[in-house]
């Protein structure tokens, strides 16, 4: 196992981590501010990817496609929030799960009605395609480097928004005491719509960016959604910083686990058993990580909420 391979795998882990962060950030904001469990967050990711694929198909421009993804996902978010979610804030978590699960089905079959049952084509723009050579002779895809960059920039902007702006103050206040900021004259329902749209746009952005190197198809959001939930549980529900740390941890654990666990087992088991045991354990690695975090820090790494 060469150093080059290890560095490359760490980069891969970082890249999947920052994309996961885009999903988890929205999810944790929505849960933190509104106390809502939004299972349909993965559908917004899918909406972003489909919008990007459709616009890229017509215009051929990747930048326009990404903008379309942001706009479409944010619009879908606003629509869903005003029509459905708004009625669920006071409801029990179980009702929220039920209603947002219904939204997943509606989004999936709606997308299938519009775009058909076959996966769509969305590709990396030519100016970001192909590998680049990093110091040390590592060949690494330029697009994945760009994803790491975009993810970090978005994380920074989000941090600035939450910590440095008036809206950020309102959002943080909303997490701590809903009634009080309503009493102080903040239009809480507008704030909720805004937060929801922001979360949706982030999910849509992730969908478009990741869609270019994956398959744009119905149901693509669900696997990511599960990981995003694991991420916010690890990071601490409601905390953007926690979502970031959690996402990087999950990304690294998943990537490095799938590579190194089989190698590790090969030291004392025969290759076939080592491979299948390693692969199975790698699948479980993030959940084991989550359990460990929950045992030692039941509120997550950065969570304040009891």
């Amino acid at each position, binding site marked *: 196992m060469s150093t080059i391979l290890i560095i490359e795998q760490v980069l891969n882990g970082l890249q999947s981590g920052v994309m996961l962060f885009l999903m988890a950030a929205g999810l944790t904001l929505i849960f933190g501010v509104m106390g809502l469990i939004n299972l349909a967050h993965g559908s917004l990711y899918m909406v972003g990817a489909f919008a990007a694929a459709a616009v890229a198909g017509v215009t051929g421009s990747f930048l326009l496609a990404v903008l379309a993804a942001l706009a479409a996902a944010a619009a879908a978010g606003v629509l869903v929030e005003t029509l459905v979610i708004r009625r669920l804030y006071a409801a029990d978590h179980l009702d929220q799960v039920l209603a947002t699960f219904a939204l997943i089905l509606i989004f999936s079959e709606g997308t299938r009605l519009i775009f058909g049952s076959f996966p769509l*084509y969305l590709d990396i723009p030519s100016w970001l395609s192909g590998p680049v050579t990093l110091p040390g002779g590592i060949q690494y895809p330029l697009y994945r480097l760009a994803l790491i960059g975009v993810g970090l920039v978005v994380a920074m902007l989000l941090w600035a928004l939450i910590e440095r702006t008036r809206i950020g103050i309102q959002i943080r206040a909303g997490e701590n005491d809903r009634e009080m900021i309503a009493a102080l004259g903040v239009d809480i329902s507008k704030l909720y719509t805004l937060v929801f749209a922001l979360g949706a746009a982030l999910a849509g952005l992730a969908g478009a960016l990741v869609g270019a190197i994956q398959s744009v198809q*119905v149901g*693509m959001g669900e696997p990511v959604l599960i990981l995003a939930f694991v991420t916010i549980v690890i990071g601490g529900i409601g905390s953007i910083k926690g979502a970031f740390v959690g996402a990087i941890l999950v990304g690294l654990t998943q990537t490095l686990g799938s590579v190194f666990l089989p190698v590790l087992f090969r030291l004392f088991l025969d290759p076939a058993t080592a491979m299948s045991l390693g692969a199975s354990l790698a699948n479980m690695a993030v959940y084991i990580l989550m359990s460990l975090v929950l045992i030692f820090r039941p509120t997550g790494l950065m969570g304040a909420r009891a």
Partner: protein
Amino acid sequence: MKKLLLTTALAALATGAQAEVKVGMITTLSGGGAGLGLDVRDGFLLALAQSGRDDIELVVEDDQQKPDIAVQVADKMIQSERVDVMTGIIFSNLAMAVIPSAVNQGVVYLSPNAGPSQLAGRGCHPNYFNVAWQNDNLHEAAGAYANTAGYSNSFILAPNYPAGQDALTGYKRMYEGELAGEIYTQLGQTDYAAEIAQIRASGADSVFFFLPGGMGISFLKQYADSGVDIPVVGPAFSFDQGILQAVGAAALGVVNTAQWSKDIDIPVNQAFVESFQAEFGRLPSLYASQGFDTANLLISALEKADPSDNDAFRAALREADFDSTRGEFRFGNNQHPIQTIYAREVVQEGDVFTNRIIGVALEDHADAYAAECQMP
């Protein structure tokens, strides 16, 4: 026009006052795997419409790619709708949930896609016919092709679930070279950066992968972008007409194995490709050809015997007296196909990505489990 034809065909099938044969189709029509079920259904419908028979009533239901739903639908079809023949299931885990109990209740099942090894060997049944392939077949063909191509150090990967394990076993059954690496990925995995890095570092001279559906699209796009240029082989499932457009140029030149291709130059196949395209406005896929063949097998048997006469009907099915889109087609002792499997290459025709046959991978190939099958 095409809508009209389909509607009249369906109407003819659905009214069925004089319907004598009832066919139940359980297939995947929603969710991520819907493209496959849709193609099987449309191929089947096309063959029925072309036969002009109005005594076949077809009931189509969606299984949502969930075994429990498939079992519910099957129970309803068998017990309350009393179907004579069943067909349609795409995925092997659903097939294993439905078929053993269905055939034991006297229903004849014609599989247009799934071919789990359990049903080809000891679990074979006189009422069960597979019109597609046994699951291992296309992978075995890929292994055989690798030998012909002179590959001697393959890196192989597949998802960690029964069909994935069968895939690697199938490849290794025929492949004679060394293995540079062997990986089981997660089922439904969408990011293959880690695996591609390992392939790059492994020094392999070829890559074999079985990653059906969206997994294959993701892998191929990322592989093409990684700059690794080791040749890739795989079964047709990741290079099918339905998903090739989503992979795009990343798949060009990749060799894949299939028992059917749209350029098999026989009249029945050319007519099928043309009429499918005219009817549905898209090129037929492997799955569509399997649906079409399944319906034609059924029709050929119905011309000789009635399903109520179970023995005669099964004997008529076993003869496989129909013109298959893939040319020569016959059943082995376990009622699975003995057929030729081709090596195809992904090419671009105009702005459409499709496959072209470049050679035969395995001729008259039967499956490895047939010997274990003891028909009562």
